[in-house]
Every structure is written in structure tokens, then in C-alpha cells.
């Protein structure tokens, strides 16, 4: 049905769910974080599966799943963390589109592996764009719903421009995050690499860190053997971006994610490559993580492969299930 704008009603948002897109630009100079989906790959894939433009607004849920009821016929796909999906009580696959009738309960169970799930709905979520984006800036309390989702929230979708596509579309596994344990994040030099002695950089790469429960959308905090370099970790505050690995005053690394502060005063010896940011965003408390240095060419090839996998034709041959 063209023209009618469906919506969904949040029954249980889980631990922490927000509306996100691919984030803001040209705002960091105001002190505004880019925000946006922490795992850009899963978010883009979810939108692509349902036939949305990749920057369409969707829901990012965290760890404990999410449940909602459809108010109108929707086409949806859920990507990201591994979890059980039930639609009207029947088990369904992630990374695949599902056409769901009005009044149906959709329930995503707590994540078994990975942390963040992306729920894309055909047409995209209809929220006003603030500073050029639908993304929720939680600390700033603007964008999206201006806050995390709560039970009873009605999420409006944009009216479909054309007939809702058939379901059953899936995306290749290479357009999904890896779930290796320990996770290995590939890094390039950060802006302050030269402040560290080669031995110090080797020390950080030799550690097996554990993801701290104090992690959030600002950053993944790591526990483990603290780094004790000769110099302090403080630098004159400078701009930072997602992927920057800050060594904080306790000698432990923090990997900045989408909702990082715009500037930071801790030294950044490494930066996680863009291709591996989705894996960083899917780390959950207790996961083991290591850093591995790569060359710029390797980083470039890795990103090219993921973008290629995203842009390839979707496989529609698999039966819906």
C-alpha cells in the first residue's frame, strides 16, 4: 500500500536502544560528536537488505535484545550481534528481510555473540534531522527521539515510496563483522605514535586485553596490563575520531567509538582501521582483544573488500526462514 506510513511500538527496548544513521558531519568544530551507528557495516547492511539508502535512520539495540509490535505492514531486517529472532513466535534469520503484517510481535533475544543489533525498517525511521542527521546524541539529548528508546514509544516510519519489496533478501557473509575470539583489531599509527618508544608500542601490541563493562558508545575501555611508559600520557587536547586508541592516565587503552568527545587530551599511539571499527563496536564486556599493526595498503584493501561486499547484488534465491 503506497502512501500510508506504518509505525512500530516499542515493547521492551532492552538495555539501551537509540535511533541512529551514519552520523553527523561538519559539527565537530561546535564540540558536537559525529554519533551514528557504532558498527557502520551492520547498519549499512541492514538498510541495504530492506532496500533503504544506506544512510537511512534505523534502531541500534544493545546486548539484551529488543521487542516491538508492528502497527502496519513493514519490511524489516536485523543485523549485527548474533541473537535469536522471533516473529509472531516463529524463529527467523538475521541478515535477511522479513515482511511482517500489522499487529505482529517481533522479539530479538539477548545477544549470544557481539553486542549491537541494527533493526532496519523499509522506508527508514521518520524523525527530524537535527544538524543534518537523525542520529541520537545521548549526551546532548538531541537527534532521534532526543533520548534512548523507552517502552511504549511509537516509532514512525517514512511512507513507502513504492510497494514494499518481497522478503527473503540476504547479504553475503563478507559484509558482516567477524566474531573471532580473541578479537584482533588491525591498527595504524596514531598521531602520537612518535612519542612512544618502539618497545612501548610493542608492549601494547603484545597484551591480551579484556573489554571492561564501563564501555559504551563513546568508547571501548580495555582492562589488562597497564602500560607504563617513561613519558606522561597527556597531550595538548586535539581533535580525535572513531578508532583512535587513547592511553588514559591509568595506562589502559580506550578505543573511541561513534559518540566520542570531539577532542581529547590523552596520547593516541594507534588508530583502529576503518574496516575493523565494526568489530570494535561489537566487542562485549569480558571479550578478549589484541591489536595487530598493519600497513596503510592493508587497511585500504580491507576497507575496499567490505565496501565491495556491501555493494554486490543481494542473494534472493534463499528461501525465507
Amino acid at each position: 500500500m503506497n502512501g500510508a506510513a506504518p509505525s512500530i511500538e516499542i515493547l521492551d527496548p532492552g538495555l539501551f536502544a537509540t535511533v541512529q544513521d551514519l552520523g553527523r558531519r561538519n559539527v565537530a568544530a561546535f564540540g558536537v560528536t559525529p554519533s551514528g551507528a557504532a558498527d557502520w557495516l551492520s547498519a549499512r547492511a541492514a538498510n541495504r537488505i530492506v532496500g533503504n539508502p544506506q544512510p537511512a535512520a534505523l534502531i541500534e539495540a544493545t546486548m539484551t535484545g529488543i521487542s516491538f509490535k508492528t502497527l502496519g505492514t513493514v519490511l524489516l531486517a536485523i543485523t549485527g550481534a548474533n541473537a535469536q529472532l522471533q516473529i509472531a513466535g516463529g524463529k527467523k534469520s538475521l541478515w535477511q528481510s522479513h515482511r511482517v503484517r500489522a499487529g505482529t510481535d517481533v522479539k530479538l533475544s539477548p545477544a549470544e555473540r557481539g553486542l549491537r543489533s541494527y533493526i532496519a525498517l523499509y522506508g527508514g525511521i521518520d524523525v527530524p534531522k537535527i544538524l543534518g542527521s537523525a542520529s541520537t546524541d545521548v549526551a546532548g539529548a538531541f537527534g532521534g527521539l532526543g533520548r534512548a528508546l523507552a517502552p511504549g514509544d511509537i516509532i514512525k516510519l517514512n511512507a513507502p515510496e513504492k510497494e514494499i519489496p518481497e522478503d527473503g533478501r540476504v547479504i553475503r557473509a563478507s559484509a558482516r563483522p567477524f566474531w573471532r575470539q580473541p578479537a584482533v583489531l588491525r591498527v595504524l599509527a596514531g598521531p602520537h605514535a612518535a612519542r612512544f618508544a618502539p618497545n612501548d608500542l610493542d608492549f601494547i601490541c603484545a597484551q591480551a586485553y579484556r573489554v571492561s563493562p564501563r564501555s559504551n558508545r563513546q568508547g571501548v575501555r580495555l582492562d589488562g596490563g597497564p602500560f607504563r611508559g617513561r613519558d606522561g600520557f597527556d597531550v595538548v587536547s586535539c581533535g580525535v575520531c572513531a578508532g583512535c586508541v587513547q592511553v588514559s592516565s591509568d595506562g589502559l587503552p580506550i578505543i573511541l567509538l561513534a559518540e566520542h568527545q570531539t577532542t581529547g587530551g590523552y596520547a593516541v599511539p594507534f588508530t583502529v582501521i576503518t574496516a575493523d571499527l565494526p568489530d570494535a563496536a561489537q566487542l562485549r564486556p569480558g571479550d578478549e582483544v589484541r591489536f595487530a599493526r598493519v600497513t596503510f595498503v592493508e587497511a585500504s584493501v580491507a576497507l575496499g573488500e567490505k565496501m565491495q561486499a556491501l555493494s554486490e547484488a543481494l542473494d534472493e534465491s534463499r528461501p525465507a526462514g
Partner: protein
Amino acid sequence: MAIRGSVLPVGDAGVLAVLGDAIDAKTVASVWSLLGVLKAALGDSVLDIVPAYSSVLVRFNPSATQLATVMAVVRGAMEVAGQTLDTASRRIEVGVCFSAECALDINEVAERTGLAPDRIVEEFCGSTYRVAFLGFTAGFPYMIGLSGRLDLPRLPSPRVRVPAGSVGFAAGQCGIYPRQSPGGWRILGRTSGLIFDPERATPALFRPGDIVRFHPVASLDDARANVTS
């Protein structure tokens, strides 16, 4: 003209131009100059251009833009940038309520500096500040120009909640918290002016280069910020 510094890659999606490692007016002026040249040269082809005290970060989409290209543009911009102060500087007068309820740290600052609370307010309001850049949280102005008599480090342990509008200082810098947030600066007073509004055409009240003065007011309701020129 040309400004000196180093141009460093930040992984595969950023380039940082570092113009020094001090917080001083001369370095800040170089940052503003470079910022202007980079905005003109890069325009919408990058995601963000982020000034700080002594650096400018360019953040870009590595699927669309080559790191080497951005590094070359930044090096070229440093050749033509100068150290000119922005001629379009505005003046902003900020009324501050220094009542006991708002001046959370004034007694401790008095103890540590040996200045009486009245003298601290005089000293603080006697200086002229300049906004170096915005960072930390939406609309937070980092200002230089703090009196040497108020040179104290950050609080040993940051507060979990600093009230919105709090005016504070630390480590030679001065700033205003636009929203309630955690923070480790020493709070002397509070203003009720709206520092950041994402739905305003210009969301942030302050911008780099602004000349800022503080004056005491009797109540928080009168503690407004006025752009005077």
C-alpha cells in the same frame, strides 16, 4: 607567511596538523588561520575540520577520499596560512552569579591561592578571554587568558555532575559547561545563558576568536550572555 608544524596521519580516516605543544595566543592564531585556509580548500569534501589549541584535525571518509590527498592539501594550506588574528572577532559579555550555591569550588580556590573569594571574583572578571575552540561537549568553549594567580590544576577527581551553565577553570584555561555533565574543572560561578541549542541556526553561542569578559550579577536569572559586537 607559512606556519610550521607536522602533518600526521590519524589511522586511515584522519590527518592531524600539529602546530606546537603549548597553549598560547600565538599558536591559537596559527590554528585559526590554518582552519580558514583548510575550510576554503577542502569544503564539503571531508567530514569534519576540528580545531584545538595547537592543532587541526581533518576527518574524512576513506572510501571517498585518499589520505595522501588530504595530507598534501594540509601541507599546502600550512604554506599559505599565516598568524593573523581573525578580524571578525565578536565581543561577548557573560553575566555570572557567584553565589555560594553556584561557586562550588571558590572556598577551596581561596585556600589554595591565598586570595579571598571577593578577590578571586575580581581577578577572574578582570581578565579578557578568547575562545580558542569548542570541544569536550557540544558548545563548550575552551578559553585562554586566565590570570596567572588562578593557575591551579584540574580537580584530582572529576565531579560526576557539573550543573549546566557552570563557569570553571583549570590548568590555565577557562570554560563554560553548556549542559549538566561530568567535569574536572574548578567551578567559580554559573550563567543561565543558553550556550548550545542544536535547533538554533547557529547552534553554539561561542565560536573561535570570540573575545569574552565576565561580570558578576546578583542572581542566576540575571546571568545572561550578550554578544555586544
